[in-house]
């Protein structure tokens, strides 16, 4: 019967074209099309500037091959960036709060257990997030392709099993990070029965955590990797986990390392355990709280 719940939710979600477009397709579309336009614009501007300065580029310069594998890994590292998170919440809010908004619980709640109904929604969200990350990957590949076409550089795919493993690990962590936000959306939806709350409460929590992270924790007397700090800020845990998987987990640091700067340090085991605990808490606790609340909830307007 869990399979019934997943199939039914998936069927309904796929037909909500507005939500699917904004939540899943829009960002990859912007990256692919916008990226191509950006690359072309850059090329045109660069050529104009060179011509105006009377500079001629020596033959062969700037024609080294582009490595597709870099795009794949960058996409994995960036998969849970702030913009993707916000747009993913559109899907989460529609999926989790939709039955309250349309009073359709009465149609399905007698046919399946409440646990399965929630699990069906969570599983559907997981599949949609996975699809979104794949589309994002494709969009980044297309971005690299357009760059190669515009700059007339050959394309290559140089990698090894280790790097591809890192890419897969980064993608998995990105998936989990988006699902963490989706769990907050789930809890907000069930407790408040409001689509707007399901959309904005996770956003507000994330914003507050980002603000705290940027302010630093010195005023609280905490160090960045103290237990209380990392449990309060799953974003720090997420970044730590990414670094543990791959130096490319921090794209800026990775770019600096490629340019000859220092290689980002791999986090020690103790910090990785703290990070994993924080990510688990922020995923499991909202889910368990949701189930507990939903099991006792009156599913009617009264």
């Amino acid at each position, binding site marked *: 019967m869990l399979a019934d719940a997943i199939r039914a939710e998936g069927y309904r979600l796929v037909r909500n074209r507005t939500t699917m477009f904004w939540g899943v397709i829009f960002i990859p579309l912007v990256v692919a099309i916008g990226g191509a336009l950006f690359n072309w614009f850059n090329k045109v501007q660069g050529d104009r500037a060179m011509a105006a300065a009377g500079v001629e580029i020596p033959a062969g310069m700037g024609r080294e091959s582009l490595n597709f594998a870099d795009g794949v890994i960058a996409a994995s590292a960036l998969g849970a960036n702030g913009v993707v998170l916000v747009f993913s919440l559109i899907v989460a809010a529609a999926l989790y709060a939709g039955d309250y908004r*349309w009073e359709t619980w009465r149609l399905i709640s007698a046919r399946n257990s409440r646990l399965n109904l929630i699990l069906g929604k969570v599983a559907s969200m997981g599949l949609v997030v996975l699809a979104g990350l794949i589309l994002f990957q494709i969009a980044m590949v297309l971005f690299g392709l357009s760059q190669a076409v515009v700059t007339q550089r050959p394309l290559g795919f140089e990698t090894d099993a280790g790097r591809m493993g890192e890419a897969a690990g980064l993608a998995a962590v990105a998936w989990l990070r988006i699902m963490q936000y989706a769990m907050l959306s789930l809890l907000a939806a069930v407790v408040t029965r409001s689509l707007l709350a399901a959309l904005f409460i996770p956003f507000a929590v994330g914003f507050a955590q980002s603000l705290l992270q940027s302010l630093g924790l010195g005023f609280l007397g905490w160090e960045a990797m103290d237990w209380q700090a990392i449990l309060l800020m799953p974003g720090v845990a997420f970044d730590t986990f990414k670094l543990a998987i791959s130096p490319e987990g921090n794209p800026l640091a990775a770019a600096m390392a490629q340019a000859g700067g220092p290689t980002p340090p791999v986090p020690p085991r103790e910090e990785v355990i703290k990070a994993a605990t924080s990510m688990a808490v922020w995923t499991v606790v909202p889910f368990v709280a949701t189930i507990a609340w939903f099991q006792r909830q009156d599913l009617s307007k009264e």
Partner: protein
Amino acid sequence: MTDVIVTRDLTKTYGSVRALDGLSLTIPKGGVYGVLGPNGAGKSTLFRILLGLIKPTSGSASVMGGHVGDVSAGRRMGSMIETPRYPPYMTARQVLEWLSLAHGLKPDAARVTGWLDRVGLAEAADRRVRGFSVGMLQRLGVAAALITGPELIILDEPTSGMDPPGIQEMRALIRSLADTDGITVVLASHQLLEVQRVCDRVAIMNKGKLVREGLVRDLTASGERLRLSLTPMAPAMALLGDKGSLEGNAVLAAIPRAEGPALLRALIEKGIDIDEARWVGADLESVFMTETGTVQTPEAIHAR
């Protein structure tokens, strides 16, 4: 199993309000069973408990032999509570396919088309529900209740928002569900004439309690009354006491035929003008009005 729904001392309170007050009701399998009551009688609360949408405060209820909330029992029934709503981006056909999937059935195009045709939505099958009228939503709600092949369906105001031809179609459909498809239908309605025509048995509720229950033909046959069009009415009601009730601008006297002539003489001697006097059988509306205490009192008549 001979009974599809059994409640024992079922109570639901919302703060100080007792929406259901010790309701004990047994609904047998087969036929069409009506649940009547004025607004606030507890009909919708009862249905919501039976569907597992809300939990009772005390007492027990069982549906199809299982406790309410039992999914295996829930899968053997369908329902339509109030004016149904659906995701507006879905078509009627998609709604039924979605509900089939939720029930664990593979969407069967022929089955979906068949039910849409039966409720009169064949031409609107591929239209999005956001453009549906209330009557169309009601029809889709009935189809949604039936798409999974239930043994019991619960319909709350199934003809609400429908035009007269639609009401007639719905009445015929409900009757055919019981007679042809063997589905037990439980419906709540304010359309007492429709209930009298469609239902085999009725339960009359008031203020969360069961006040009368039985076969429709027994309830309506139990009260031949003398219908009197007369003026003024207050002295006539005072003379009749608790044997008198009002029906529109007429007085109904619940007396045996043998006492009719004596009553008419007494009324004339009191100076009451009698325009018409005839014997009538009781209908469900008068039974309902009497049982729910919604007949007008002599004080209200004095105020006229």
